[in-house]
């Protein structure tokens, strides 16, 4: 710990590396045990909770996977092809998302582009649209009979671009994941002093060259960790490949899992899908190990002495502003407009004219009793999940970044792993253990699964600010008379509360529209919003489904604005 004050003498903000280089003396006379006991108890409690909400269901899946040897099946053509598709689409989409997210972060946080604040909010909207809804909206835009393709066909005799198939899957996955990249990269960007770029300018580099040779390389660790996060998440996505990929027979592992369950063509499908789940788990674990290795080689950055100076774009300002606005609006507003038009039309195929517009769908979607119970359930469950994830994630994040213990990495990994597993597999895990823990057919089962699936969001979002806080903040509290535990609570914990709240809001927004977990774990008679939309869809009430999606998205947008304000 003494090295933290030493390191801060030179002014760096990233201290974790320096800290780990100099472990505390392990010589520890007996009397100190008492002051450390509080922390050890806290850590034990966190381990117990994590064991309950993460390890248990994971264990169930693993046990199921190894109850019989299904490995030969994995080597079959179908699975290999699907695995290949999954990997390719996840990697490609993550690459695209990282490119787009990084470009946006640079443009919005480092230049004097016009309307940056509004753009930022718009750019984040894909976070709010459930991927399967987004996919449906995009079909009506870029499907074979989308307006663009129809027009193109009439003029040039062939469609411009058909969204169905692998390319569409990659495109949509990228659209739904670039906001996460943007959030991560822009946080990292804020920690890179503008001095570094200006030093390059003075050395003779043009603005673009300075960004290319200085800023981008320094962002690389953040870009890589965003990449792993997004790639792993996209590996598990179900909605987009099932709606966009399947029509062109582009099968991924998560749609394959669904097919195995659905078609009854394999023996003991649960064991098979668990096996696939374990494979995905291993891929995710590998990705996380890479992430840890990469972040270990993170550069030490000094605190900037000068305020961030925005790069004047000069003559490029207007064209760049227009291009960025156009790009962002096309990606975000177009699907919303598609949803809106569907919501206002009575049935698919009815031409869009003033006479045909109706509010019936909106009324039907919002007034159905099942929507109301769904909304109540979803709001209750997601708010609870947000709260629990907030508190638990904050505690885990604090303990993992602010104390030293061999088990910290394991604890953090445990909290991060579930995000790589498809919702369906998580749900199966919980279904299997539910009867034994007496949660079967209760909403608490879904709550547990939500906590498992989303805890990573909060852990992730509190770690960054905590890592940037020097250890002296806690030492000052101890000198003031606080025990280790008290110092952890009063100082680190409270300082990370805003980040935890922002993370919790993200959890709420994600959980409120969750589908694949809820659909399996719901008690008879219960509903959630995601399931509502899906049910409407399946019942052929597409337009009502659009209406409901639109409403959820708009409410979420408001919530996101709130979160953005909190995070600041």
């Amino acid at each position, binding site marked *: 710990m003494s090295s933290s004050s030493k390191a801060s003498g030179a002014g760096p903000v990233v201290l974790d590396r320096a800290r780990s280089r100099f472990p505390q003396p392990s010589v520890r006379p007996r009397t100190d045990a008492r002051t450390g006991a509080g922390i050890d108890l806290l850590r034990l409690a966190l381990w117990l909770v994590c064991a309950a909400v993460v390890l248990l269901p994971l264990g169930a899946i693993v046990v199921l996977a190894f109850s019989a040897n299904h490995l030969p099946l994995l080597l079959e053509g179908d699975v290999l092809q699907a695995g290949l598709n999954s990997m390719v689409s996840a990697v490609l989409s993550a690459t695209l998302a990282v490119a787009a997210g990084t470009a946006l972060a640079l443009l919005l946080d480092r230049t004097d582009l016009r309307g940056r604040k509004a753009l930022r909010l718009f750019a984040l909207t894909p976070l709010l649209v459930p991927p399967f809804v987004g996919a449906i909206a995009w079909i009506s835009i870029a499907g074979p009979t989308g307006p663009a393709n129809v027009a193109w066909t009439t003029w040039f005799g062939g469609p411009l671009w058909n969204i169905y198939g692998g390319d569409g899957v990659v495109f949509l996955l990228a659209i739904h994941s670039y906001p996460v990249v943007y959030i991560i990269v822009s946080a990292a960007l804020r920690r890179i002093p503008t001095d*570094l770029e200006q*030093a390059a300018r003075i*050395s*003779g580099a043009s603005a673009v060259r300075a960004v290319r040779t*200085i800023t981008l390389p320094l962002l690389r660790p953040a870009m890589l960790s965003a990449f792993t996060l997004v790639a792993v998440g996209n590996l598990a996505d179900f909605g987009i490949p099932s709606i966009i990929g399947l029509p062109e027979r582009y099968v991924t592992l998560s749609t394959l899992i669904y097919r195995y369950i659905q078609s009854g063509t394999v023996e003991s499908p649960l064991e098979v899908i668990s096996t696939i789940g374990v494979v995905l788990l291993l891929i995710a674990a590998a990705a996380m190990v890479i992430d840890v290795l990469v972040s270990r080689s993170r550069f030490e950055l000094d605190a900037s002495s*000068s305020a961030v100076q925005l790069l004047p774009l000069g003559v490029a300002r207007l064209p760049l502003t227009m291009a960025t606005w156009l790009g962002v609006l096309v990606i975000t507003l177009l699907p919303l407009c598609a949803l809106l038009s569907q919501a206002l039309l009575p049935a698919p195929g009815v031409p869009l004219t003033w006479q045909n517009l109706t509010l019936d769908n909106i009324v039907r979607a919002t007034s159905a009793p099942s929507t109301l119970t769904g909304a109540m359930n979803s709001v209750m469950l997601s708010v609870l999940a947000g709260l629990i994830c907030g508190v638990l994630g904050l505690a885990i994040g604090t303990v993992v970044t602010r104390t030293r213990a061999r088990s910290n990495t394991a604890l953090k990994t445990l909290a991060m792993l579930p995000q790589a597993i498809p919702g369906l597999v998580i749900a199966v895990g919980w279904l299997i253990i539910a009867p034994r823990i007496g949660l079967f057919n209760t909403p608490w089962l879904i709550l547990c699964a939500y906590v498992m699936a989303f805890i990573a969001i909060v852990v992730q979002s509190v770690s960054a600010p905590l890592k940037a806080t020097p250890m002296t903040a806690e030492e000052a509290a101890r000198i003031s008379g606080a025990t280790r535990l008290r110092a952890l609570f009063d100082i680190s914990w409270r300082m990370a509360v805003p980040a935890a709240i922002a993370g919790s809001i993200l959890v709420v927004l994600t959980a409120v529209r969750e589908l694949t977990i809820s659909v399996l774990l719901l008690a008879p008679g219960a509903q959630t919003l995601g399931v509502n939309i899906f049910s409407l869809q399946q019942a052929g009430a597409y337009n009502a489904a659009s209406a409901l999606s639109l409403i959820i998205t708009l409410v979420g947008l408001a919530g996101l604005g709130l979160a953005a304000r909190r995070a600041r």
Partner: protein
Amino acid sequence: MSSVTLTDVGLVYPDGTVGLENINLAIADGEFVALVGPSGSGKTTLLRAIAGFLTPTAGSIRLDDTLVADRSTLVAPEKRGLGMVFQQHAVWPHWSVERNIAYPLVLARVPRAERTQRVAEVMQLVGLTGFEQRNPATLSGGQRQRVALARAIVGRPRVLLLDEALSALDEPLRDSLRLELQSLTRSIGLTVVHVTHDREEALALADRVVVLDGGRIQQVGSPVELVTRPVTAEVARFLSDATIFPGDRDRNGFVATDHPCAVPAHLLDVGSGADALSGAGMIAVLPEDITLEPGTGAPTDAVVASSLYGRASNDIVVTWQGISVRCRVPGRRYLVGETVVVGIRRAMFYDAARALVELVETR
């Protein structure tokens, strides 16, 4: 031929804050100029305007004979041929020391052989030979600052800009880098503009010191001039911790208002243009011009408020009838609480009007 010429430069930030106002300054080729002034006085603003990171809203800036900024012209920072060292050194952490230093030459498309040679030269100059392949993270603060310096001078800039370049360093390091910086820039004849908070540093290093306040130049002069003939009482206070006594002057000398301080005429320094023999004004007394003697018990005695030991002279603050007087006196170190008699060896008189006149002339 002037190396940097600022003519009527003004700079108003978009939010309306006035950063600079009516700056006229000509920095000669090979000159070392220090910018000092209180926090917020516009030092950084001025430097960044020269660098090209800020655009003046009035006036013009020339480098040699090239106009680099005025109402219609703006040469980008990378095209101005400058070198700059930042407070937090801004060494690029992802490159080795050598790569950091070579970057300006890479950008200038200097052939590899020449590049290697020039980098080696400049590394020797700043005493970093042997550190070529080091990762900057493994360097100490002083070594990093040396890398930044080497990087700034390797491209043979027209002007070297230093923005608090030494402020982030510890005292012993700062001390030795100061020496190095001076001998280095002298030996290669660089024109330097050095922004600093540290008055001693400015006086120690510079050929000329520019005192800024509120975005305006208060005084420009050599260190000796600034210390011995500050153009206003304010400059004396800022630069030398002079104590200011308001009062009146007549042919016998100066008498402070409501205060026992009085200075006979022969100890009063009234500047070259002085002719008025009486009037209201103020005197500024430098800490070195004050003598202390053990108190007599008289009601006009002063009390020692703080007493800091120094090698050559102790730094003592006495409270003299309500006024805090900063003194730098050698010999016996008076302790806090002792009573002392304050003597004045020399004082500078300013009457409000004259001070203003001089100020305008200086600019």
